[in-house]
């Protein structure tokens, strides 16, 4: 493992920010730390960088314990959310700073800086001071500075937070290629779930003093550990409906009722019958169907929001619960008034209402699974 954190604890005065965080990242892997602000993502990065000391636990880089190792000796590159460029040095000197520290020769520095700057398309502003750079150029300069030293570990603290939407979109496309070319272990902090899904080989979801789930983007999206994580990923947010699963007639499966229409749950949810649960339905797991389709749920159409690639419809069930349904743009939508939606039951998630934890379907009812598929 290139980077290994074990039981990291960090307190600020009496407030515990990180409580027993463990994490390991392999060489060349990009791990995204995702979570709402205040979840301790930045603190974790600072601990790895060595500018803040942990109150407990160990940090190992390439198998070496980092306790007492100064930031300058850790072989790390870091891009800060606020860029943290040196205001009295031009972009060139900023980017060169990891190289001057190693007493690299003038020509070698010029060459490396030139290469990184060309890659990030800032080679024409190398002689500008930070205050003469646009936000996008500042962000690229900060990134270039982090990359210039070819560090083993690259820490990127929400580098796209303070740049405009267009550049963010471009960089979201560019960054994966860039990061792969570095052959570095990357820890990427973000609050944007799309960025997390686009960049991460794995995502660590942080919330409330620690890591709640680590997994591939697909894992996190399809099998979130709890309601909170399900809500954090996805736009529009997942529909959450209080349900009490019941035994389905005949088939031996489990179903829930939405507006009195039974919806069969796929998988082994037998243990949940009669307990208070929350059903999680992603907006794209539902579609409008013609009236009279078996199992269709009647809803009232409230409002429609056309986004670029999809259209989101806000509907009300007969019990007045809000449900959002999305469909790819171009597909015909429902008229005003009553419409009918069908649920793709295999994409439904079930959570324990008391604990918020997801109830993983047992693997012991394959028959039903095939049935619906």
């Amino acid at each position, binding site marked *: 493992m290139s980077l290994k954190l074990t039981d990291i604890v960090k307190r600020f005065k009496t407030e515990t920010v990180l409580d027993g965080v463990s994490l390991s990242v392999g060489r060349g892997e990009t791990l995204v730390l995702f979570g709402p602000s205040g979840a301790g993502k930045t603190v974790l990065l*600072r601990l790895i*960088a*060595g*500018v803040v000391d942990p109150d407990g636990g160990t940090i190992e880089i390439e198998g070496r314990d980092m306790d007492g190792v*100064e*930031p*300058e*000796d*850790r072989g*790390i*590159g*870091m891009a*800060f959310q*606020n860029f*943290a*460029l*040196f*205001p*009295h040095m031009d972009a060139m000197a900023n980017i060169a*700073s*990891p190289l*001057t*520290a*190693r007493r690299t020769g003038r020509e070698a520095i010029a060459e490396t800086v030139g290469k990184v700057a060309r890659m990030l398309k800032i080679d024409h502003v190398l002689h500008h001071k930070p205050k003469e750079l646009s936000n996008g150029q500042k962000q690229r300069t900060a990134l270039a*500075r982090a990359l210039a*030293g070819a560090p083993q570990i690259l820490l990127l603290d929400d580098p796209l937070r303070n740049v405009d939407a267009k550049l963010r979109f471009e960089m979201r496309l560019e960054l994966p290629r860039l990061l792969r070319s570095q052959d570095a272990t990357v820890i990427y902090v973000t609050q944007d779930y799309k960025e997390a899904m686009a960049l991460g080989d794995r995502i660590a979801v942080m919330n409330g003093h620690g890591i709640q789930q680590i997994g591939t983007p697909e894992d996190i999206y399809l099998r979130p550990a709890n309601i909170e994580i399900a809500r954090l990923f996805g736009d529009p947010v997942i529909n959450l409906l209080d349900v009490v699963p019941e035994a389905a007639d005949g088939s031996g499966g489990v179903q829930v009722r939405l507006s009195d229409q039974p919806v069969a749950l796929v998988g082994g949810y037998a243990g949940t019958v009669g307990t208070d649960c929350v059903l999680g339905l992603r907006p794209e797991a539902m579609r409008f169907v013609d009236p009279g389709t078996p199992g269709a749920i009647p809803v009232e159409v409230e409002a429609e929001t056309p986004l670029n690639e999809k259209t989101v419809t806000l509907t009300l069930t007969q019990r007045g619960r809000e449900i959002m349904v999305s469909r790819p743009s171009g597909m015909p939508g429902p008229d005003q008034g009553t419409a009918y939606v069908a649920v793709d039951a295999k994409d439904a998630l079930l959570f324990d209402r008391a604990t918020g934890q997801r109830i993983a379907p047992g693997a012991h009812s394959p028959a039903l699974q095939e049935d619906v598929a």
Partner: protein
Amino acid sequence: MDTVSPLERVLRGLAITVVILFFMFPIVWIFLMSFQTNETILRVPPSVVFEPTLTNYTALITGKLETAAGTLEIAFMRNLWNSLFLSTASVAVGLLLGVPAAYAFGRLKFRGSEDIAFTLLSFRFAPPLLVLLPLTIYFQKIGLADTYVGLIWVYQLIVLPLILWIVRGYFEDIPADIEYAYRIAGHSWFSTFRKIALPLAGPGIAAAGLLAFIFAWNNFIFALVLASADKQPVTVGALAFVTASGIQYGQVAAGIVLSIAPTFALALYAQRYLVEGLSLGAVKG
């Protein structure tokens, strides 16, 4: 904002004139006095019309004071030089000690740092005479009385807290991330201090140094008690103008003009830094 009525403009101009007159009058009056003899200064009623004379300045520069009772030796130029030397050396020592200390207080929150910083500031609260009497005795015992070294040391009481507190605010205003970024890039803390913290706090250090210089220059009591004639600065040296045959107002005025000239020029030159230096830290940008 060009909606100011003519009346308001006139009133505003009037108000500014009054304020300027109030503050500048003594300086202008002293400036005029320095070109007059004692007789013209003391005539009743006073008048701004007079025959200008340079005798006051020549007396100061040649060191020969002509009074009704005869010629008096004064060491004004020597005093001026002492002022310059004492202030410059004190500020230099103060910067050398104060800037690293300010950095430590600003950045490294060690146990008791606030208390120590406050103690250093509290030197400014105590009446100087309270410190001076025991200090004089000590200095006489260890041979520091009436030496430049001793004076510069005591001047640190004025200079050091000032530098420490102004510069500390500047260091605290530098975002810590900028320094972290330099360390993570692979530079030692000392190199970070030299290449990042010092240049970025530069204006603050300049302002603090300037202000400390002015405070040291204007000091009177320390040098009065601890120095004899040949080491006294102008502030103390001006006492020589109180002679047996009366106060030499003309020379006093000329002495004042000469002695405020350097600080006045410095302050004018660095006005921008001074204002910035004093307001920064108070307003977080």
